[in-house]
């Protein structure tokens, strides 16, 4: 599926066993798309063109079909992100409990607006919609982990542990 003669870029999965397992789980190939993309992002940091080609080959879909899927989901990144992803929930219950001030605080302290990454690549700040942790608002997801009931002081301490 190369265009204008350039060779097709290919991504090589590190965990070939996991790839096999994922493909064997589903009754059809295309259903393995999201789990393969999750795995690729874990290994590669983001979904590159090479990842899209490779996943397309594995699930028997044109890369455009895989890209169509990738572009729909907020957790799949088509560009490299900072080492640590700070995702502040901004939906109502978090907003009523100080989430907006948390975002401003991180912006002031690290000089990054939502959507931006610090120059040293340490943090990417994002505002996200409801994380489903409204009872312990405000909630911030850092990488995979939820941190609940945060204050400015607590988030400062927490971010110190993420170098």
């Amino acid at each position, binding site marked *: 599926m190369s265009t204008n003669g350039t060779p097709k870029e290919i991504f090589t999965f590190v965990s070939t066993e996991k790839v096999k397992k994922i493909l064997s*789980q*589903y*009754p*059809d190939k*295309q*259903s*393995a*798309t*999201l*789990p393969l*993309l*999750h795995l690729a992002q874990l290994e590669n940091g983001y979904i590159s063109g090479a990842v899209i080609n490779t996943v397309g080959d594995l*699930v028997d*879909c044109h890369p455009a079909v895989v890209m*169509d*899927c990738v*572009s*729909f*989901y*907020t*957790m*799949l990144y088509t560009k490299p992100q900072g080492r640590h992803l700070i995702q502040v929930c*901004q*939906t*109502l*219950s978090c*907003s*009523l*409990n100080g989430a907006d001030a948390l975002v401003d605080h991180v912006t002031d302290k690290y000089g990054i607006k939502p959507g931006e990454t610090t120059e040293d690549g340490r943090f990417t700040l994002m505002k*996200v*919609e*409801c*994380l*489903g*942790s*409204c*009872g*312990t*608002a405000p909630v911030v*997801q850092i990488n*995979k*982990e*939820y941190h609940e009931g945060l204050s400015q002081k607590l988030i400062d301490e927490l971010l110190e542990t993420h170098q």
Partner: protein
Amino acid sequence: MSAFKPVLTEYIHQKDCHTLSFYKSVGGYSALDKVLKMNPADVIQEVKDSNLRGRGGAGFPAGVKWGFIPKDTNKPKYLINNADESEPGTFKDRLLMNKAPHQMLEGMIIAAYAIGCQTSFIYIRGEFYKEYKMLEMAVAKAYESNLLGQNILGSNYNLDVIIHRGAGAYICGEETGLIESLEGKRGWPRIKPPFPAIEGYLQCPTIVNNVETLSCLPHIINRGADWFKSIGPEKGPGPRLFCISGRVNNPGVFEEPMGISLNNLIFDRAGGIPDGKNLKAVFPGGSSSAILTAEEALDVNMDFDELVEKGSMLGSAGVIVMDETVDMVQACLNIARFYAHESCGQCTPCREGTAWLVKMLTRLVNGSGTPTDIDMIFEITDNIGGLIDFSKGSFGKTICPFGEAVAWPVRSFVEKFKDEFLKYLPQEKVIA
């Protein structure tokens, strides 16, 4: 009034409550034992008789849904556990997955057996990584103990469970959006009919049930449909996990009988409002429900039908409390922004309408709104979700109910707190 004893969350404060050995020590998987000796049709009948209604938001009777599965098909049948909890104000399924994963799994196996399914999925929202790991552990343990896999407990019944992570999309909680997403596509809801029970995952008969709905099943089998029906209103009975958040002293998940008064939930269970402030408005059933004013909220029971009569809905039972300090225009904008972000973009009224709502509300908040803007917000909500007239059932300008889910709350803010919207108009424009 006799004290209600929690059913689904009875053991969540005990150490190791998530483990298989703990769950078995309190009678876990005894319902499965019983079910595997029953005729699947009798299991469906028992659940129908219990009047169990879906806990995800729509409140559709679970047994009736199962009954739609064709009896004369050679196609495989699928069960999908909808763990894509993402309705703002709702955080109960997360609790159940963390604290009682085996209760949910037992419910899944019961449901799968009833509908004749041998491959089932748990579609869990991508952000719930800890819960995903928890379920992975629970499923592995269940395979080890012959509760899943081949010839379950010597019954000749086989079932596989596959855990599938979403990747950040609210719309994948809608069952046909979820199915599309599971198939490796954008989570675009499908036109219905055909309903998933006829043509769902890979065009095969599919049942999608919520985590809490499935978690009720072991108890219905063990204690019977009549017991279940005796809890709360007969038409929508059972224990229910109410999530309370926003401006309350003691937010959290509270298991109560269906039909408990909202007043009791807010002021007793959730400890009332901080700093002695007054109640202003409440979302009774997640952010997709129309808000209730303080007066309405203090006089309503958390029952499917009663809330519909009051022009709102029980939805996912996610209660968001707003006190007198909350600016209703800002709150409305917050919710509108959520829906604009989460609109899947498939239907024009919703894709364009939600974006316009945000633009107009932002303009209003920034002091450059006009009086016609407020009328136009009404018009847009009509265009997205149709007039809010439950008696005429006038829904349906979009493929899925997301359209109504944005129209109802936004419209209710403007209707019930119009004076606050007017206050945002620049002074000279109000006079003109």
